[in-house]
């Protein structure tokens, strides 16, 4: 379907997001490609930081874009990035849930992350670093983790985070405070840093 869409000559790189989205709704494949190019790295990065292993991140991103295209007609107001983040977050949550179930039955709960990281990363140092932070993040609750990631790693303001996660800014602050405290405690407990 996507490949059959004709490239619209009206689409230009300077079109703003609303025009781009409207073109996508009209079935403009070039618009789809441009939208994809704009948001791919965000989706990839967010998925990784929310806990998706390097080996699975492409699958999660693919699923997120698929859902976005299918439901794009339902999106009318707000920022696309916020709406798309919610899709990514939902997909990441589903991925982590499957991973927990799988780990429960395979008995590899504790070590799976290490193995996956080691297979994806080349250097020992990088593997060590990724595993340390990822393991600590994995111990946070999902709500705290996303607030922590969006604030500490993505550098988004509280208001935007509140919009993305669907809660008041004060709640974001509260979660962020709690997430930092938990992050420190877990890191000390695991000896990540002194």
């Amino acid at each position, binding site marked *: 379907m996507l490949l059959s869409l004709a490239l619209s000559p009206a689409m230009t790189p300077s079109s703003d997001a609303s025009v781009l989205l409207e073109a996508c709704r009209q079935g403009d494949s070039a618009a789809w490609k441009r939208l994809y190019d704009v948001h791919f790295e965000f989706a990839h990065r967010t998925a990784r930081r929310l806990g998706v292993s390097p080996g699975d991140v*492409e699958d999660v991103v693919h699923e997120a874009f698929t859902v976005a295209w299918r439901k794009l007609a339902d999106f009318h107001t707000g920022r696309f990035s916020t709406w798309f983040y919610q899709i990514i977050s939902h997909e990441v949550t589903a991925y982590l849930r499957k991973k927990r179930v799988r780990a429960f039955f395979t008995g590899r709960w504790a070590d799976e992350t290490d193995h996956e990281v080691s297979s994806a990363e080349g250097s020992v140092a990088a593997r060590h670093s990724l595993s340390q932070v990822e393991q600590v993040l994995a111990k946070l609750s999902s709500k705290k983790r996303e607030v922590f990631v969006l604030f500490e790693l993505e550098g988004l303001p509280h208001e935007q985070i509140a919009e993305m996660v669907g809660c008041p800014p004060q709640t974001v602050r509260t979660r962020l405070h709690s997430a930092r405290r938990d992050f420190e405690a877990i890191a000390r407990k695991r000896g990540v840093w002194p």
Partner: protein
Amino acid sequence: MTPRDEELERFRAQTAEVDAGAKDRVWRRLAVSTAPEARRSWFGPALILTGCAAAIVALVSAVARPAAFETRGAQFVARGHAEVRAAAPGQLMVTRGTLAVSAWGDRVTVQAGAHTIVASSAVFGLKVAAESITVEVRRGVVLVDGAEVTRRWPAGARALEFDELEVAAGATANSGAADPASTTMPAERSSVGGNDLAPAVRSGELGAAIGGAASGASNGAAAAQLAGAATAAVGGAASRSGASNGATAAQLSGAANAVVGGVVVPSGGLNDETAAQLAVAANEAVGGAARRSGGSHGATAAQPAVAATAAVGGAASPSGASNGATAAQLSGAANAVVGGVVVPPGGLNDETAAQLAVAANEAVGGAARRSGGPHGATAAQPAVAASKAVGGAARPSGGLNDETAAQLAVAASKAVGGAARPSRGSNGSTQLAGVASATVGGTSGAPNGATAQRLIETGAAKATAGAVGASNGATAAQPAETSNATGDRAVSRAGAWNGAPPRHGAISKTGIDLRETARVGPDAASATVGGVVTQASGEAAPRNAKMGVGSVAGTRTPSGADGRAANGAAATETAGISNAPSPDATRGATQSGVASGATHLTAPQPAAGVLNGGLSRDATVTPPIASRDATGNVVTGSSPPVARAESFGSCEGGTARSASKSEPAALTNALREEAALLQRGEYELRTLRDAAASLGTLQRAASKFPRGSLQQEVALTELEALRDLERWPELITAVEAFARRYPHSERLDEVRALGAFAAKQR
């Protein structure tokens, strides 16, 4: 920057890196997946629906599985999970389910859907589904819609598709054993199908077989004589629908030294010296199922296998109660195993079933199942002294009276391979084969009156020992004594004996005695009169029926100081043999019941030993010379006294006592205890339906008597308990253990089938 910030910054930088080809790969996948929603739209729900449907089917099938059942008919036992109802006697209707049927009748009908299954002494599995049935024949003859099935019937096959099945040549839809004329017989054999004695007698010589089924009533010395001297087998099914009198079925294989390989199922009543005599003296085995539906009492079933060296391989199942020394005596002195299943549904009283295997040297391998309550010295005694097996199932359904079924296998050196099923009780004395040594070449069977004498006369020509069985009246003594005598004399003795005191009862307590007897007997020869001690009355019981070729079998010492029986009526079945019978001796025997030469039993030369109605058959009769000793008793002079009171034990007070008695006492106690545990286990399993308790009891029996005579039986019952408990893994292990321990068990095939079934269930 704190270490925390450094780590986060490193993580931020690394997660910001995107693999160069990742973007293109994901885009290609997005482009290719043109309509993922369409695929999801039906695949997921379809998968869910499929799973739900499978779960529902499994649940419904589990819930709808027919309940386990076990039903018994007159001639069959069916067990399994099926919807079953009994339509008529001997007929079963199966709507659906799986069941195993063991049929010992000559024509048991199972209606399975639109198909009719007729079984003749067969064991087969049957699975009835909505549109098809599956029959797997384990043993015997099974006809499905008239065609014999010898292997698994393909599911869905109809009657007209039997081309692919093995159909026995000559088999017809309604053949079976009912009509001997339609029974296909091997060409090298001759069949005796009717009641006419003449052809039977003609074929009564060596090599003749009663291969077919005798469905008519046999009179007197009819069927018995048929196989009188046959050396082959009574291979077919002898089923008498009418009553047989006199020496009938018993005599069938009376002197046969082969196998009664078929099924002897007299549905009518058998009277004196009948069924019991069947296998007496048989040199081979009672391989089939001896089932007596009538009640037996006195020294009956127990005596059959006495002295048998082989096995009563079949199933002896008297449905009635046996009293006295009955079932026990079956294998009394047999050195075989009661390998089969002894299932008397009726009650057995003192010293009955127990005595079955008394003296067995090995085991009562089968399952002794008595639905009635045996008491006294019962099951324990069965296997004593038997060195091999009564391989089948002894199920006395009815009662047998005096010295009947018990005597079946007396002295049999091997097995009566078929199934002897006297449906009625027989009375009188049996002892057919009492003394058969190797070949019971002559007529066995307890002849009555003239029959016996005629037999003797006939046998004399062949140097046959004469009267084979202990006949009523003219007992064992007569044959030997009157080997040259006339029939009239024999008859007169018979009359004298009729007036003699009762001869039953002593045996009941003589499980051990039997064993002793059996043990002593073999000294003399290969042929042992297994000690059919049927006489009991306190007065005279001689019993030492042991003999061997060329030995004087019977030895009986009167208790009286003067060498005579204490009372005139004492039993004296001495084996006095005289070439020229003394009138005095004859008179003494006739009137007082004391045989001439009672004090010293001398055996004539090889063979011709007579004891207790037993006698050695194949006797090359060397006429002994009778003389009188100082006390006037007749002694045979030409041959040394082989059997003396010392050697066989004396009979004090009329009690048969032979040899030592101390060892058997301990043995019997252990055997009784073992048998009690076995019986309790069976009762818990079959009556109380408490398989778990039964298993515990049986395991206790196994651990307490690891080398007990009944261990094979215990093991088999354990398998049943495990099956009822549906403990399939343990059952498979137990089956393997059984196969290792009893590699030659006659039940091995069944056990293996059970193991296969368990494997499927697991």
